[in-house]
């Protein structure tokens, strides 16, 4: 495999991590995930209905994809840690996408709780991928406590506003000792390509695929964008300059 993504000694050929929520129906989700090429897909952990068990979409995914459980919605380190432990028991994985929300409207991470929970989960043997602020200091602190990757936000979760602060994302990518996964805010394919061009190792996409008009086609677009952005990053873009530079030869012009 050329140019694999490696997180915690695990190798992935796909650099797109896909969410499984908000799809119009089960078949569209399955088709979109297949079109995205994702190998790692996220899931939430929720209380079962006490009126008896009904099937979960995750039942369909467990054998085909590596599941990355999240702690979405948790507002305290204690709840996030318990959710991660329940996820480990339910899914037999020590990987967790750690989310600790500091504001229920903005869904912005609570950095203080996040670093604390990440530290504790790493000590308990978890592979922790934290959803975090697009701030090099927070990302460094999370790497320092042993997180396997960092997942800075591009913009607000589900907003589709793209990468609000590309300079910060580029800075994080240039300094991070662990892989950087752009999480949240991607709206369309060019956002995903931009994330990769800025130096991100992978992107996490849910709403932009699931809520698009044609999720299967958008999943294919995201896959192509991630691959294209990654290739462009590796190829190295030309420097920007303020003046034109003709691409055709200047000598031998007709009529001169």
């Amino acid at each position, binding site marked *: 495999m050329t140019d694999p993504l490696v997180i915690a000694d695990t190798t992935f050929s796909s650099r797109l991590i896909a*969410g*499984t929520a908000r799809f119009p129906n089960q078949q569209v989700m399955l088709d979109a995930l297949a079109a995205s090429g994702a190998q790692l897909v996220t899931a*939430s952990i929720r*209380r079962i209905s006490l009126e008896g068990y009904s099937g979960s979409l995750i039942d369909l995914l467990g054998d085909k994809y590596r599941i990355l459980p*999240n702690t979405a919605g948790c507002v305290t380190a204690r709840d996030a840690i*318990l959710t991660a432990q329940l996820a480990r*028991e339910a899914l037999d994985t020590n990987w967790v996408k750690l989310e600790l929300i500091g504001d229920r409207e903005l869904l912005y991470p609570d950095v203080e709780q996040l670093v604390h929970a990440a530290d504790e989960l790493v000590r308990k043997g978890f592979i922790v991928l934290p959803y975090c602020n697009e701030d090099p200091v927070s990302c460094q602190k999370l790497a320092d406590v042993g997180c396997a990757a960092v997942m800075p936000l591009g913009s607000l979760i589900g907003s589709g506003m793209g990468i609000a602060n590309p300079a910060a994302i580029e800075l994080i990518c240039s300094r991070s000792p662990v892989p950087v996964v752009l999480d949240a805010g991607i709206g369309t394919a060019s956002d995903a390509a931009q994330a990769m061009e800025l130096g991100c190792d992978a992107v996490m996409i849910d709403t932009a695929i699931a809520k698009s008009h044609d999720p299967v086609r958008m999943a294919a677009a995201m896959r192509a964008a991630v691959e294209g952005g990654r290739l462009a990053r590796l190829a190295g873009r030309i420097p920007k300059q303020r003046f034109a530079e003709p691409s055709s030869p200047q000598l031998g012009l007709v009529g001169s």
Partner: protein
Amino acid sequence: MTRLKVNGEEAELAAATIAELLAERGIDPKTRFLAVAVNGAVVRRAEWPTACLAADDTVEIVRPFQGG
């Protein structure tokens, strides 16, 4: 009967163990991807038949759902 809090709801139950609690709620304990915590601590599947429930225990029964 034991008074428990199950998934946030108060309940009077005859169950003495987690396995019995699941049975009483119509949940097959062999269901894949199920996990249980009592008073904030995960109880492994292998211990469900023997793990005793006491009055006022808080039980969480969870499984994975779609998520982002």
